[in-house]
């Protein structure tokens, strides 16, 4: 392989580039990134960076001494991928011929079309988003957070600590029920109330009152009107795959890949938040939107790309952490298929507990709230269990599409 092109210059793209060099790739390495910023870390954007505790320099993921010998094309977007000629067309008119391509374009924050563009409506995905929002967090202001997912919850927590009046609106009966299951979603939702934030579950937004280009009130389906100085929209992310439409790359909820990150086109792999890898246990493609997956999995995909052949190592179950209201939440595994949740340490009321999700007798996931040590042991156990799947075939497209 002469030229390896990585599209996306964030955690998963950088990890792929590093893995390629670590695995002995000595050819031309090009990294294309739509943002002007060199790779930076996103998790602090809703936590310490938003709170003003750390600086932009602290977010840097790469150092000057990173011996990558890569060509960085920053502020440039890949606009088209020709899978026949293996060329990538760029927004500045150039095109790159590649022998191998890593798709690492991540995800974007979903917006609410009816308020998109209003001056006091924010999403939080990029450094630029966080800069803009950080300037708005003055004590006493009223913030309405739409969506109680991780980013909504963390932003609510940070804003509350900065002295804002915060209300969170969540459509479903319990937040995070997709990620944690309904029962534990409800348990974790208790953190909001304890943190002094109004949490309105099972509530939908009817409309927004807009005055002079900014939202003045959020109108709920029960007729209530919430005054808002700031609206944070945290309604999830969508994979950045539109530019691949018509390229021949199979897309679903993300770029569809086998269990080692290979797409249906030879010499093209996908990693990080844009990629939905085949999961043996779920027997489905699954898009993981967590930091650790974006850090660890690229090494597998790059190995498959450079060396071909078998999957060298098992993929660990998805793991994420979240910091809210001074509590540390950690989760590993898949809730899918569990039939009971058992609290093994601590108790829900104390907001310090470890809960294990079982499918029959098999532990399939673990949730820790302020139980870091116990959580670590369980996570190691789940990782070892996953290694049982290491020899499974890498998965077919036919099985899922």
């Amino acid at each position, binding site marked *: 392989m002469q030229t390896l092109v990585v599209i996306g210059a964030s955690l998963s793209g950088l990890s792929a580039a590093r893995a390629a060099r670590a695995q002995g790739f000595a050819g031309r390495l090009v990294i294309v990134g739509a943002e002007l910023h060199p790779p930076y870390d996103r998790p602090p954007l809703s936590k310490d960076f938003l709170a003003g505790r750390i600086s932009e320099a602290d977010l840097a993921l790469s150092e000057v001494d990173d011996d990558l010998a890569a060509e960085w094309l920053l502020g440039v977007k890949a606009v088209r991928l020709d899978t026949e000629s293996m060329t990538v067309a760029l927004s500045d008119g150039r095109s790159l011929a590649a022998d191998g391509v890593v798709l690492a374009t991540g995800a974007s924050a979903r917006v609410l079309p009816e308020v998109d563009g209003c001056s006091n409506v924010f999403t939080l995905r990029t450094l630029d988003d966080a800069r803009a929002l950080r300037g708005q967090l003055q004590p006493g202001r009223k913030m309405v957070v739409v969506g109680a997912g991780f980013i909504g919850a963390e932003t609510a927590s940070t804003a509350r600590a900065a002295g804002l009046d915060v209300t969170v609106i969540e459509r479903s009966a319990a937040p995070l029920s997709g990620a944690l299951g309904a029962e534990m979603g409800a348990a974790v939702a208790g953190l909001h109330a304890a943190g002094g934030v109004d949490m309105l579950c099972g509530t939908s937004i009817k409309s927004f009152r807009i005055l002079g280009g900014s939202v003045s009130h959020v109108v709920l389906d029960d007729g209530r009107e919430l005054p808002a100085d700031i609206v944070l929209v945290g309604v999830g992310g969508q994979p950045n795959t539109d530019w691949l439409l018509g390229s021949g790359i199979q897309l679903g909820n993300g770029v569809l890949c086998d269990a080692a990150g290979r797409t249906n086109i030879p010499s093209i792999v996908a990693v990080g938040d844009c990629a939905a890898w085949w999961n043996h246990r779920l027997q489905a493609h699954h898009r993981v939107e967590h930091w650790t997956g974006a850090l660890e999995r690229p090494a597998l995909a790059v190995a498959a790309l450079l060396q071909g052949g078998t999957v060298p190592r098992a993929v660990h179950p998805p793991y994420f952490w979240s910091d809210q209201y001074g509590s540390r939440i*950690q989760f590993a595994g898949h809730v899918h298929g569990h039939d009971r949740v058992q609290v093994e340490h601590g108790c829900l009321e104390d907001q310090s507990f470890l809960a294990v999700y079982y499918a029959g007798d098999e532990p399939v996931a673990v949730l820790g709230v302020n139980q870091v040590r116990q959580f670590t042991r369980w996570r190691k156990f789940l990782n070892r269990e996953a290694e049982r799947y290491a020899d499974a075939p890498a998965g077919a497209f036919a099985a899922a599409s």
Partner: protein
Amino acid sequence: MHEACPLSQLAPGDAIRLDTSPPIAVFHTEEGELFAIDDTCTHQDASLADGWVEGCEVECPLHASKFNLRTGGVDAPPAKLPVRVHEVIVQDGTIMVRESEEEPNLPPGVKVDGYV
């Protein structure tokens, strides 16, 4: 010198966190050795005493950086800077720690006495 705990209360495989400024983690490895290092990971705010020890290495419970318990050096990223190592002495059955005089490498946003 900081007093940790009686040796009999720290079984092999266990670790404790001392409420010093900054906190210190003391490990008793499965192999029976005692080590003390700074408790706070140099990447972000996580307690290494809650981490996973294998051989002479501790893995951070948050993002899996690995630190060598003997040298404090980083064996695996994302952490870049080492933790300090401290001398461990067992005196009359009590674990004592002599804190290093070097400057600690605390993560961004964390000061010696805790969060900024």
